């Protein structure tokens, strides 16, 4: 598979635009989708936003100057679109409904383990209480293994800000767990 840069150049030269764009989508669609889903939790919402994101990318890709990585650029668009969506829906990521908690509980992990241990409840609360930015930074850092520069690029913040958000998130989780 061609690199992102090669695909973008082909796209910008109007060479088989749709085919090239499809290749770009196959490379990045999962990560984009999961990034969005971490913020909105429901598949239907994540799907809607993901579609908006990719259509926006199609419209703007001709003007993309490759000053940053394509993945950083698209994740930035996804992050902003999700925030816009949440604002419109008047949802706050720290205020999760019982359905959302249920979604969290059934997300992954071993099905053999008990689902309502104290530590799980505490962790649920900890994640629930994290401000949106801290939660996203925490997810991107811990689960996706992104460096702070990439996270800063996605969130539109500084490297220092991304680090601070991550460390704050971890401290809050620690505080919640220690209460047990």
């Amino acid at each position, binding site marked *: 598979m061609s690199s992102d840069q090669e695909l973008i150049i082909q796209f910008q030269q109007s060479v088989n635009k749709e085919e090239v764009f499809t290749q770009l989508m196959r490379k990045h669609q999962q990560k984009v989708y999961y990034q969005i889903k971490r913020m909105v939790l429901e598949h239907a919402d994540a799907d809607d936003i993901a579609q908006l994101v990719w*259509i926006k990318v199609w419209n703007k890709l001709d003007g993309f100057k490759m000053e940053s990585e394509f993945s950083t650029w698209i994740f930035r668009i996804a992050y902003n679109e999700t925030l816009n969506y949440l604002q419109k829906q008047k949802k706050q990521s720290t205020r999760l409904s019982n359905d959302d908690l249920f979604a969290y509980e059934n997300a992954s992990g071993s099905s053999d383990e008990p689902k309502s241990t104290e530590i799980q409840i505490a962790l649920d609360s900890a994640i629930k209480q994290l401000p949106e930015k801290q939660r996203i930074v925490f997810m991107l850092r811990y689960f996706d293994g992104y460096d702070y520069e990439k996270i800063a690029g996605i969130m539109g913040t500084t490297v220092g800000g991304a680090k601070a958000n991550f460390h704050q998130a971890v401290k809050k989780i620690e505080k919640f767990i220690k209460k047990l």
Partner: protein
Amino acid sequence: MNQEKEKESLQLDQQWVESIVEKNELNRFNLTHTDAPFNYFESFPEKIISRIQLEKNNTKHSAFKILFLYHYAKIAVAATFILLVGGLYLYDNASIKKSNIEIVSMQEIPNEEIINYVNNNEALAELDLDLAINKENAALESLGEIEIQKIQKAIIH
């Protein structure tokens, strides 16, 4: 070198997090591999391309509509203007012709005809005059003495 440093930093961060919470517990929040519906990612690109094509066609139709309407609007305005100007011109011409016809007709009538007309209609004119006089006389006869005196005074003064 930077990549290695970053890798090290990431490992330290992860270890720090895992010292607080077990990895298994944290994995429950890693919404990455079990949360999309079956076949979602296989069909997603096609869905997006279809949507893009649809939006492109709608844009073309909109542009065509706007162009067509704009073109049509221009023609409509021009036609209205022409009708207005033409209508005014025709109306104006018709008025002028009418008055001209009258003038020309009057001027063109020979004197003999005019005299004949007057002579032929003199009798009728006398009749009309008599009728008018009789009518006025009848009106005067119905007036009372006091009213007659008032009228006489008004005439004298």
